[in-house]
C-alpha cells in the first residue's frame, strides 16, 4: 500500500469511463465514473474500486461465515449470519443423516456453526452449506463481533495478521467473513486477543498496522 490513498464520498468523480473501468462501490453515468459509497479509492488492473469504511455485511457465494441458529424447521434451519437477510441451511447440506422432523437433535436454536454460503439468488435468498471440511458446530469458546468491513485487516495480507495473533496468544481462532470471530483458549489469553482485535478494528484504516500490532503484542507479552 505505497500509493496515495484518498477518501471518497458518494458522488465523487473517480475518472473517465473510457480510460478506466468502474469496479466495486462505483457507478457510471454519462461516461464518468463516480463513487457510490464512503471509502478509500484503489486502482487495480484498470479498475477503480472503493474499499468501504463502513456498512453491513454483504454476503457472497463461497464466504465462510459464523452463523447462529434462529429456528428449527422440519427439514431445515434458519440461521442468522449478520447479513440483511436470513439464511437457510437444509438437511441435505449437513454432514449428518437427519431424519425428517428431528433437526433439533443436531442443531438447536442458539447453537453456533461455521458454514459456507452455497447459493444466493436474485432476491437475495441465501442457502448455506456445511458439507465442506472446516464447517462444524462450535462447541466451545467465545464469539466476538467486529465491523464486517474490518475483517480483511484482522486476517491481513496472506493471513499475516491472523498468524501473528495466533502466535502470540496460543488460541484457536476462526474469522468469519461476516464479522464474527470465534476464539478458543485459556481465558486470560482470550482476553488478550480480544483487546488486540479491538485495537485492529479501531485502527483498521491506517498504514503499517501489522508491524505496529507486532510491537503491541510483544510488549503485552512481557
Amino acid at each position, binding site marked *: 500500500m505505497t500509493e496515495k*490513498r484518498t*477518501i471518497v*464520498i*458518494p*458522488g465523487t468523480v473517480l475518472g473517465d469511463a473510457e480510460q478506466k473501468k468502474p469496479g466495486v*462501490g462505483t*457507478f457510471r*453515468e454519462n461516461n464518468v465514473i*463516480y463513487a*457510490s*459509497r*464512503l*471509502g*478509500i479509492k484503489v486502482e487495480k488492473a484498470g479498475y477503480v474500486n472503493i474499499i*468501504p*469504511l*463502513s*456498512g*453491513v455485511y454483504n454476503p457472497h457465494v463461497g464466504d465462510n461465515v459464523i452463523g447462529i441458529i434462529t429456528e428449527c424447521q422440519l427439514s431445515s434451519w434458519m440461521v442468522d449470519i449478520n447479513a*440483511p*437477510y*436470513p439464511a437457510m441451511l437444509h438437511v441435505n447440506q449437513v454432514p449428518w443423516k437427519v431424519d425428517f422432523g428431528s433437526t433439533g437433535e443436531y442443531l438447536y436454536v442458539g447453537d453456533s456453526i461455521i458454514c459456507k454460503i452455497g447459493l444466493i439468488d*436474485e*432476491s*437475495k435468498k441465501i442457502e448455506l452449506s456445511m458439507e465442506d471440511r472446516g464447517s462444524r458446530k462450535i462447541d466451545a469458546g467465545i464469539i466476538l463481533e467486529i465491523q464486517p*468491513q474490518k475483517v480483511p485487516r484482522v486476517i491481513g495480507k496472506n493471513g499475516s495478521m491472523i498468524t501473528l495473533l495466533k502466535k502470540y496468544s496460543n488460541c484457536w481462532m476462526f474469522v468469519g467473513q461476516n464479522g464474527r470471530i470465534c476464539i478458543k483458549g485459556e481465558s486470560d489469553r482470550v482476553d488478550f486477543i480480544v483487546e488486540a482485535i479491538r485495537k485492529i478494528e479501531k485502527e483498521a*484504516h*491506517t*498504514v*503499517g498496522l501489522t508491524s505496529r500490532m507486532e510491537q503491541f503484542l510483544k510488549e503485552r507479552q512481557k
Partner: protein
Amino acid sequence: MNKNELQLIKKGKRIDGRRPDEIRPIDIQVGILNRADGSCYLEWGGNKVIVAVYGPRELLPKHQQDSTRAKVNATYNMAAFSVEDRKRPGPDRRSREISKVTSEALSGVVFTEQFPRATIDVYIEVLDAQAGTRCAGITAAAVALADAGIPMRDIPASCAVGKVDDTLVLDLTKEEDNYGQADMPLAISPRTEEILLLQMDGHLTMKEFNTGLELVIDACKKISEIQKKSLLNKYGSSLG
C-alpha cells in the same frame, strides 16, 4: 400578533441581521452514535437535529417487502421540548407527512435495487426547532446515510426559500415562516441538480418562483460543501 406590526425586513437586513440571500450557520458532526450503523448531529441556526441510520436490514412484517428493491423508511420526530409550547409526543399529521416526503427524497439517491426485500431505517429526532427542520432533517439524514456506507448516487442537500415583505429570502426563521408570504422547502441532488423534494406554502409569482429556485439551488450547493467537509473530516484526519 398582527402582521403589520412586525417589520421583517429593515434597510435590506432581516430580523436576525442576515442578508436576504444568507443562510444560518451550519455545523455537522458525523458518527456520534456507537450503536447505529451511521449517524449525524446537525446544528443549523437554532435547529438541533440528530439522525441515526440502521440497515440495510430485513424488512418486517414480511408483506411490506419489495422483492426488487429496498425501502427507505424515514421517521421524523419532534421532541416534546423542541418547541415553545410543549409538543404532545408521538406521531401526528405533520410528522407523518414529513416522514413520507423525506423517505421519498432519500429514495431518489439511494441504490435501493442493490438490497431487495430490505429496509434502510432513518430516524430523525428534532431536539430544538426554529423553522426549517425538514430541510435540516434531510441534510443530516443524507450525511448519516453516507456514514452508514449505503450506496448512493449523491449526497442530497436541502434548504428553503420564501417571500417576506415582498422580498425573496433564503432559509427562513420562525418569525419569517409565521408572518411571511410564502415558504418553499427544496431538496436537490447537488451533482445533477435533480429536485428530490419541493413543497410550497403561500403564493409566489412564476418569476419569483424561478428566481427563488436559482437562489435555493445555489444555497444547497453551499450546504453540500459543508456536508462533504464534515464527512471527510471524520475519516481524513486519521488516515496515514
